[in-house]
């Protein structure tokens, strides 16, 4: 670097690892929400959806946290985040929300797994040995629904936290954008929550492919996609055009808008009309679009100040 003439490289403090972490935390929150809501409130039985969501949540949040730790300047001192607390820092509060969520999702995943294993056993064994299944594993199942309920709070917390983390940077014109110009209501937590539920649901459906009728879920995902399109439109009008320029223009228009929102929406409408099964391409595009959104937000906020 030239000290006098200030030839600086476009360096960002937070790069791809953080974008990927924010994306994975969203997926984890959304997948957990899908599984636990189904578990608690659905009249129909969707065991595969519950399993898919519960397992995806665990894997995503653990991989995400791993990326977060590796991205630290001093990875081996990550435990100091638990020791020194600053209640005024969103990141410090987030450490506890995400830790709580990780713990709950692991417990929930184990309970879901035990339940599935027990169900399988019942199906295999004959009627007179069914008693064996109602052992320790079944006793623990009493905790499954309370864990799911508490987990819902933590999964919403985790998904919105990823937005608050960025929006709390008051000196960043893009990240700090308020919702509809209302000072005090930051935009990103709302956008990231909707995107998290949408991508988490999509990932869960990919994991539960060909497991009966998923029409209800497809319709929910369509509503979420439409909601996200509205939010992205509001965002586009709320900030300066420079944030959608240069290399970020391609990522935004191609990745976020066309691949992540418009194509899956049109394909879903088409599939509902023609009764075609297009879960894999629709959900795949939603998930990739969700990653593009995080990458776009993380980078454009730092590149153009």
């Amino acid at each position, binding site marked *: *670097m030239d*000290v*006098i*003439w*200030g030839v600086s490289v476009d360096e960002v*403090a*937070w790069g791809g690892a953080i974008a990927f972490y924010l994306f994975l935390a969203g997926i984890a929150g959304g997948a957990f929400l899908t599984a636990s809501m189904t578990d608690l409130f659905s009249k129909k039985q969707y065991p595969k959806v519950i399993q898919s969501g519960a397992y995806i949540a665990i894997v995503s949040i653990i991989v995400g946290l791993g990326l977060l730790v590796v*991205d*630290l*300047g*001093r990875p081996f*001192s*990550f435990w*100091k*985040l638990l*020791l*020194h*607390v*600053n209640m*005024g*820092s*969103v*990141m*410090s509060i987030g*450490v506890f929300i995400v830790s709580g969520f990780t713990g709950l999702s692991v417990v929930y995943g184990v309970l879901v797994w035990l339940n599935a294993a027990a169900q399988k056993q019942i199906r295999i064994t004959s009627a007179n040995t069914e008693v064996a299944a109602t052992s320790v594993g079944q006793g623990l199942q009493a905790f499954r629904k309370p864990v799911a309920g508490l987990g819902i709070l933590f999964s919403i917390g985790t998904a919105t936290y990823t937005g608050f983390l960025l929006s*709390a*940077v*008051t*000196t*960043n014109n893009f990240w700090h954008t308020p919702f509809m110009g209302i000072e005090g209501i930051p935009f990103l937590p709302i956008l990231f929550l909707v995107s998290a539920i949408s991508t988490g649901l999509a990932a869960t459906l990919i994991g539960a492919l060909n497991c009966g009728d998923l029409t209800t879920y497809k319709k929910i995902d369509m509503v979420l996609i439409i909601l996200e399109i509205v939010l992205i439109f509001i965002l586009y009008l709320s900030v300066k055009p420079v944030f959608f320029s240069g290399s970020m223009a391609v990522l935004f228009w191609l990745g976020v808008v066309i691949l992540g929102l418009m194509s899956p929406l049109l394909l879903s409408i088409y599939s509902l009309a023609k009764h075609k099964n297009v879960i894999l391409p629709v959900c795949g595009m939603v998930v990739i679009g969700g990653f593009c959104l995080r990458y776009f937000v993380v980078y454009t906020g*730092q590149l153009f*100040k």
Partner: protein
Amino acid sequence: MAKKYSMIINLAKCIGCQACTVACKFQNKVPEGQFRTKTPANGLKGTYPNVSQYFIKEACQMCQKAPCVSVCPTKASYYNEDGVVLIDVDKCVGCKYCMTACPYDARFLNKETGAADKCTFCYELKVSKGEKPACVSTCVGGALMFGDLNDPLSEASQFLAKHKGEVRKPELGTHPNVNYIYEGVVK
């Protein structure tokens, strides 16, 4: 009484020699390729032969309402008893949140320690012993001044009483303790 240390940078007197840049690197053993302070050329204006430009010293602005301190998750970034923003290297995990928050790009991740790093006003090594920061005492053109603004008799207070000091990006409400004097400079 608590101190309010401030640096005053008189831009018209700066010749861009980078003595401050070098003195800081030696004093604070800043890793190669990294800088706590640097003085790039700025504001190239006009058409030949009527051109002007000036040099502007950049470093931590020692905000009284520092975004880096409020976002730090471990309280590694803090204000000391004299209002100077410092980093407790032992508490820092290197999350870079402060670097995203600083509107002056004053911070970097020290290559050797992995912790956030920036100008300290040479607090530990010089100022706490009654000396001036390394950049100030080495400045060739006399462009740099340092002192306690809570002491009305200090050189810094006396100078600011007569000249108009400006802070960078005042609209962000960070209330920096580094004042720039633009008198005699085409902004």
